[in-house]
């Protein structure tokens, strides 16, 4: 138990022997993985390998899918996140998520950022202003939008919208940030900005990113997990995986010999 409470102090995320089924379809097969803290972990693998499904397990986004069933455990801060007494809103505050396509609310830039805080009942205008400025600065967007805070978020460019969505997630101070192909709809310049941002975020956050862009995984992540047909085939330091992978199947995938 002493060991367990030590783990609780750190904001750890541990999956053990996880299986996922969609009806009869066994999509995640006995996966165990511990997310290293304050680091970036990339999930790679061919389409349908289960990487996005696995990512969505961490903040229970699969719960809405018909026929979803899971066994095994996912422990966050020492607590099973699938236990009945878990408050989903609280969980998703601590484990935020950014999606493939930017999804700002049809509100002003300002209201997008403070949305989560308002739900929590924060009314202090000075505090809200401060959070807006600090989170927009964190995502390198403040300089670009400080004069457009009252304009619709939908008027921003795709890259700006994606960074705004990250800022919205950061405003409620998560400790884990899940990203599901966050740059697949962005141009190369916006992609580069977002990668720089992710790199900065790992100083305070644990980032897990699903990407189809293997060069992106190689550029930004500390560790890489390779999924294939629902199994975790290899979980290695990224530098090793892209220079000398342990498994032949990983090598075949990352060198484009299948997938």
């Amino acid at each position: 138990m002493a060991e367990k409470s030590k783990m609780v102090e750190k904001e750890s995320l541990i999956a053990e022997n996880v299986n996922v089924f969609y009806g009869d379809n066994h999509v995640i097969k006995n996966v165990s993985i511990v997310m290293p803290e304050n680091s970036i972990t990339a999930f790679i693998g061919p389409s349908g390998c289960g990487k996005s499904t696995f990512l969505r397990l961490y903040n229970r986004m699969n719960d809405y899918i018909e026929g979803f069933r899971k066994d095994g455990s996912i422990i966050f801060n020492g607590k099973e996140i699938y236990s009945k007494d878990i408050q989903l809103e609280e969980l998703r505050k601590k484990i935020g998520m950014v999606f493939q396509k930017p999804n700002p609310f049809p509100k002003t830039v300002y209201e997008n950022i403070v949305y989560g805080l308002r739900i929590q009942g924060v009314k202090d205008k000075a505090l809200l202003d401060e959070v807006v400025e600090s989170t927009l600065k964190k995502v390198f967007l403040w300089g670009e939008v400080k004069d457009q805070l009252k304009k619709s978020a939908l008027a921003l460019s795709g890259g700006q919208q994606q960074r705004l969505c990250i800022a919205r997630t950061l405003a409620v101070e998560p400790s884990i940030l899940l990203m599901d192909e966050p740059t697949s709809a962005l141009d190369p310049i916006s992609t580069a900005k977002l990668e720089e941002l992710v790199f900065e975020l790992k100083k305070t956050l644990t980032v897990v990113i699903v990407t189809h862009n293997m060069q992106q995984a190689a550029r930004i992540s500390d560790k890489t997990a390779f999924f294939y047909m629902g199994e975790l085939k290899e979980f290695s330091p990224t530098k090793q995986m892209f220079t000398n992978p342990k498994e032949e199947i990983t090598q075949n995938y990352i060198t484009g010999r299948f997938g």
Partner: protein
Amino acid sequence: MNHFETEITELKADFTTLWELVAKQLRNALRALANNDRALSQTILEEENRVNALELKIERNCENIIALYNPVAIDLRFILAMIKMNSNLERAGDIATRIAKFVLKADDAFFNELINKTHALSMFEESCELMDDALDAFKTSDAQKARAIFKRDEYINDLNKTALNAVVESIKNNPQEIEKYLKMMSLLRRIEKSGDISKAIAEEIIFFLEAKVLRHKQYKNEQ
């Protein structure tokens, strides 16, 4: 075969052509040295342009593959090894050229005796075989064959030490010919260097096949 594999196949073909050309240049340099063959030496000098052109072409193609295909894992190691092996082969080509120039300028009688005394031709023959064996290891992707080169390069180093000692002895007996003896020492060093190049290439073959970096290491544990 996909586009990337086609590029790699073409790169390998160019590289093999360069290697065979350099091996031939070294063999010709050996024959020119053994027979004081000035015509053959001239041919070596003329062929050097082809060596240089192929080296540049391979280097450019390696750069293109990195820029266009972002190779990883064994593909990345292969390209990195190719860049180093390419540069090493060009240096081996330079050695053949230098030896050809030596033959063109040499004082036959003086050097013939010294070449016999130092067993320079045996050392050169051994060095040419090493280059052929390295090529074979590359063509067959055989790391064991590549490893066998390390010991044989040590043998060449030993032959070189003995040869240099013989030259030093000769200098003591005939100090007024010091300039010629220094030229001979330089020739011996070049022959020895061509063995070192085969060893460096063997290290790169092992690097891309097994992801092991053997430079600056003792090879005893690797045998």
